[in-house]
C-alpha cells in the first residue's frame, strides 16, 4: 500500500546503513584527514595519517569494515508525525542490527555490564535507539557506530554557575588527559547546558555533525588550542590532535552548568537514509 512504511523496508535499510557506515568513511572526514596529512610537520604523525587514509581506501575498495571495533550501533530516528507504520519500529531496528552482524559482519560487541557475558550486538538497551518527532510523513534513520576507545575517554562534569570561565580549560584538559587513547585525530563533541543526561546527548549530537559545517569563534579557538598541545595522531606527537570541535547548547537550570565531552575517533562513521511515507 502506498504511503505505508513496512517492517521489511526498515530492516533492509538498517543493514544497508550499517554496511555503508562501517565500510565507507564519510567524504567530509576523509577530506579533512587528507588536508591534515598535507599540513602535518611531524614525520611520525604523517606515518599515522597516511596509514589511516590508506586504511579508509582499502576498506572501501574491499568492502570490509575499516575498524575491528564496529562499535555500539547508535540510531537517531526522525519520525514524521504523519508517518504510517503498523509495527514496532525499535524491534525492526534491532532485527536489522542482528542481520547486519551476520551479513557484514560486525564484531559481537554487546556484553552484560557485570557478568561480561556476550550477547552479540543486541541486548538490553543495545543498540541505542533515539526517537525525535518531526513534521511530515517520512522516517529518517541515521546510524553512528561508536567505538569503545573514544567513548571510554568521555567525561561529564556538573559545574556551578560561577565556574563559567573554567569550561574552556576543562575541555582542553580533558583532551590532554585522553592523550592517544581515543584514537586521535579526534572530533571533540561538547554539550553545554541542559540536564545531566541531556548534556551528554548534546555532546553526542555535536560529535555527529558534519566536518564541513563552519565553526563558531569558540569552537575555532578551542580547536587551535587543542592542536597546539602537540598530542598528535595516536598520541605519538604532531600538529593534528583534533579535526574539529563542535559544541551544542541547551538552556539549563539557574543553579546548574552541565558540560559533557564526547570523543569521536577519526573513524567518524555515520550514514543516513530517508524512508518515504
Amino acid at each position, binding site marked *: 500500500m502506498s504511503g505505508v512504511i513496512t517492517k521489511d523496508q526498515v530492516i533492509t535499510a538498517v543493514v544497508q546503513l550499517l554496511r555503508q557506515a562501517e565500510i565507507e568513511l564519510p567524504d567530509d572526514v576523509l577530506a579533512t584527514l587528507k588536508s591534515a596529512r598535507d599540513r602535518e610537520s611531524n614525520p*611520525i604523525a604523517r*606515518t*599515522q595519517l597516511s*596509514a*589511516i587514509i*590508506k*586504511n*579508509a581506501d*582499502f*576498506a572501501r575498495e*574491499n568492502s*570490509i*569494515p*575499516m*575498524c*575491528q*571495533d*564496529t562499535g555500539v550501533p547508535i540510531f537517531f530516528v526522525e519520525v514524521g508525525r504523519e508517518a504510517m507504520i503498523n509495527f514496532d519500529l525499535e524491534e525492526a531496528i534491532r532485527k536489522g542490527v542482528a542481520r547486519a552482524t551476520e551479513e557484514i*559482519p*560486525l*564484531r*559481537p*560487541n554487546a*556484553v552484560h555490564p557485570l557478568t*561480561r557475558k*556476550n550477547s552479540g550486538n543486541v541486548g538490553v538497551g543495545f543498540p541505542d535507539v533515539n526517537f525525535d518527532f518531526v513534521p511530515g510523513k517520512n522516517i529518517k534513520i541515521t546510524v553512528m557506530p561508536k*567505538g*569503545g*576507545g573514544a567513548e*571510554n575517554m568521555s567525561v561529564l562534569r556538573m559545574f556551578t554557575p560561577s565556574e563559567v570561565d573554567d569550561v574552556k*580549560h576543562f575541555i*582542553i*584538559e580533558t583532551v*590532554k588527559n585522553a*592523550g*592517544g*587513547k581515543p*584514537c586521535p585525530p579526534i572530533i571533540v563533541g561538547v554539550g553545554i547546558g541542559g540536564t545531566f543526561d541531556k548534556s551528554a546527548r548534546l555532546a553526542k549530537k555535536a560529535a555527529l555533525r558534519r566536518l564541513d559545517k563552519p565553526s563558531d569563534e569558540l569552537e575555532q579557538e578551542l580547536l587551535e*588550542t587543542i592542536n*597546539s*598541545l*602537540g*598530542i*598528535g*595522531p*595516536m*598520541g*605519538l*606527537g604532531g600538529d593534528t590532535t583534533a579535526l574539529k570541535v563542535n559544541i551544542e547548547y541547551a538552556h539549563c537550570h539557574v543553579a546548574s552548568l552541565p558540560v559533557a565531552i564526547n570523543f569521536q*575517533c*577519526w*573513524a567518524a562513521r555515520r550514514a543516513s537514509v530517508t524512508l518515504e511515507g
Partner: protein
Amino acid sequence: MEYTLKTPLSKADIIKPRAGDVVYLDGIILTARDTAHERLLSSEKIPFDLSGAAIFHCGPLMRKNKEWSPIAVGPTTSARMSKMTPELLEKYGIRAIIGKGGMNGVVGALYEKCIYLAYPGGCAAIATDQIKRVKEVHWFDLGMPEAIWVFEVKQFGPLIVGIDAHGNDLYAEVEKRANERIKSL
C-alpha cells in the same frame, strides 16, 4: 630508523630500535586483551608459547566459513592492560607488545626486556592484508574479541616504537610537552 624484526624475538632484536623508530614484524603475533591477560596471569600451563613472543592488544573481527579468516584486525587501547603487564612480563618471555595509545607505569617492566609498538589505531582493514594465515585460536570460550588468536604476519606495520627497552617513553614526552603548553596558556 626503520627495522624489520622476525619472531621469535631475542633481546638483541628489541634492544636496537629506539622510541620513535619504525618497525615491521614478520612471523607470529598472538592477540591478548583484558580477560586473556587475567587468564594468562592465573594459569599454570598455557597451550601456546610466549617465549620471544609478540602479543597484540586486539579484539579482532573474524569470520568462519570452513576456516577462520580475518575481517578487521586492529589494536585496542593498551592502557587497560597496564596494571597486569609487569606481572605478565615477569611470568612469560614476551619481547614485544603491540597496541595503541601507550601504557601507564610500564617503562621499568619493559627495561632491557621488551618493547611497546604502536599500530595505527583503527587501521584494521590494512592489517588483514598483512595477516598471511590464521594459525590457531585458543580460549574461544572468552568470546571472539577476547580469545587468543595466533596470526602469521608479513611486514606487519608500520609500528612506531612508543616505549623502547632503554626507558624512553614517547607518550610521556608528548604529555610532558602538552602539560607545559597548558601551563603557558
